[in-house]
């Protein structure tokens, strides 16, 4: 039953939302349907099409609830829902198919008028079917905070005039980035797991990949493909990021035989086909960088000149200090640490609180034989690290300086 909920609830909510914009009421109606299923299915046997069964019961319950609430502001909704329900009721239940409206729901949940934390929470709740407890645990926030966030966002959806439709043309170009950003944030949250003892929280990454595939299937744009390829290329290498003895292994030291070569090849082919569309974007460029790392036989044989070039191209579209830092590090493999040091130094102020900056600075200082500077940077990186596995690795690097 839990599996069905995870798989089907998003689809059902998306269809019901088409008719009633009050998210909480829709969720309640679906909940009613699941309660009814829990009572009836074990005794009477499972229906042929559980999802269609749940959908039609949830719809019936939604009408009941709307009627009971005598939804003053939406009398037309109740009427429309009743009509569509009667029309469908004439069909045998098992032939009911649920139209896939999830793209609408995704764009609605990721509307930039909602704060990004709210976008993330709503997406996980409504599209992925995660419970509040699961979401709270994944993001280390209390039930209270999360519920307040969700309630406020749901209220805004039903009253602020957020359209329940997939934007088109220029509007799509404006809105797509916030959808992609939510999915990538979910993936990163899992892949880099900044806090807590585990380096990866696999379940969140699974959700992000599932969403990425769903988005690409429903809306096959170049950037949706780029994001999917980027996440898949990272994920194909995740087995190399830790081992039984080492909780964190940096890219340079990873055993590349533990990477999923078949998955990497498949993602690369997918990415190359996408790049041929010649609609470049930040996710495609990052995926191309990831592909260069993934296909190299060793850290030393990575085509660093091309990686540096891609970071330069990325900086044109995404001029952030973090991209500048990555560009700097890539360039250090081509031009040498000495050459990039001034550029790295110039980022010190803007990235003063950014842990990876100090890790990179420490490594470059070490290459230049500046042990004092390297030690200071390692210490600062350890201070800023919220991940136990990573800080243990940095401690080790710091200790090895003296030798």
């Amino acid at each position: 039953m839990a599996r069905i909920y995870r798989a089907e609830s998003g689809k059902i909510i998306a269809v019901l939302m088409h008719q009633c914009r009050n998210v909480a009421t829709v969720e309640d109606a679906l909940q009613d349907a699941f309660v009814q299923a829990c009572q009836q299915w074990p005794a009477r046997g499972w229906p042929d099409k559980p999802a269609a069964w749940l959908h039609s019961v949830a719809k019936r319950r939604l009408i009941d609830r709307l009627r009971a609430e005598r939804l003053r502001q939406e009398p037309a909704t109740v009427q429309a829902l009743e009509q569509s329900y009667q029309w469908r009721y004439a069909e045998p239940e098992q032939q009911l198919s649920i139209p896939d409206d999830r793209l609408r729901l995704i764009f609605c949940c990721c509307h930039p008028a909602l704060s990004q934390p709210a976008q993330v929470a709503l997406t996980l709740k409504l599209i992925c079917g995660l419970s509040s407890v699961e979401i709270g645990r994944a993001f280390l926030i209390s039930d209270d905070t999360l519920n307040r966030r969700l309630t406020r966002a749901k209220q805004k959806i039903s009253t602020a005039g957020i359209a329940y439709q997939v934007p088109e043309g220029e509007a799509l170009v404006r809105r797509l980035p916030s959808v992609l950003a939510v999915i990538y944030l979910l993936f990163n949250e899992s892949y880099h797991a900044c806090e807590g003892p585990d380096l990866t929280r696999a379940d969140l990454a699974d959700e992000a990949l599932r969403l990425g595939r769903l988005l690409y299937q429903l809306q096959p744009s170049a950037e949706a493909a780029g994001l999917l390829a980027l996440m898949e290329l990272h994920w194909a290498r995740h087995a190399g990021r830790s081992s039984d003895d080492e909780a964190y292994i940096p890219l340079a030291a990873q055993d590349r035989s533990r990477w999923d070569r078949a998955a990497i090849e498949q993602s690369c082919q997918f990415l190359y086909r996408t790049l041929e569309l010649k609609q470049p974007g930040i996710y495609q460029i990052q995926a191309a960088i990831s592909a260069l790392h993934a296909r190299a036989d060793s850290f030393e044989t990575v085509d660093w000149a091309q990686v540096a070039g891609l970071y330069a191209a990325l900086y044109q579209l995404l001029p952030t200090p973090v991209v500048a830092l990555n560009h700097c590090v890539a360039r250090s493999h081509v031009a040498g640490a000495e050459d990039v040091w001034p550029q790295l130094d110039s980022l010190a102020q803007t990235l003063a609180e950014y842990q990876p900056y100090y890790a990179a600075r420490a490594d470059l200082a070490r290459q230049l034989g500046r042990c004092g500077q390297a030690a200071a940077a390692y210490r600062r990186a350890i201070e800023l690290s919220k991940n136990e596995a990573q800080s243990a690795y940095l401690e080790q690097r710091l200790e090895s300086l003296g030798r």
Partner: protein
Amino acid sequence: MLFLALIYSAEDADDVDVQTLMAQYQAYDDEVRAAGVFQGGNALQAAATATSVQLRAGESILTDGPFAETKEQLGGYYLLDCADLDEALSWAAKIPSARYGTVEVRPIMSFD
């Protein structure tokens, strides 16, 4: 669906001279009317002209000044009739003061 676009900006913060700004507002006004979106709108006199009133225990208490003493003050508004929030936000973004101030968009509550 009706939306109110509230225009907040620091009163001395225009990024162009008054003449140019007036011309820009005139152009925006024409455009928003031509599109059939305009339902109303006005510029307000400076916040220094504001008087705030409260009724407490049957007595009206007057305060010289706006509701809140903030750097950015309410300077005007547009009432817009749009299909949805996205449309309202795109019209709001075109309001000349949005370049240096802030335009807050709020849906009008309907009671029918």
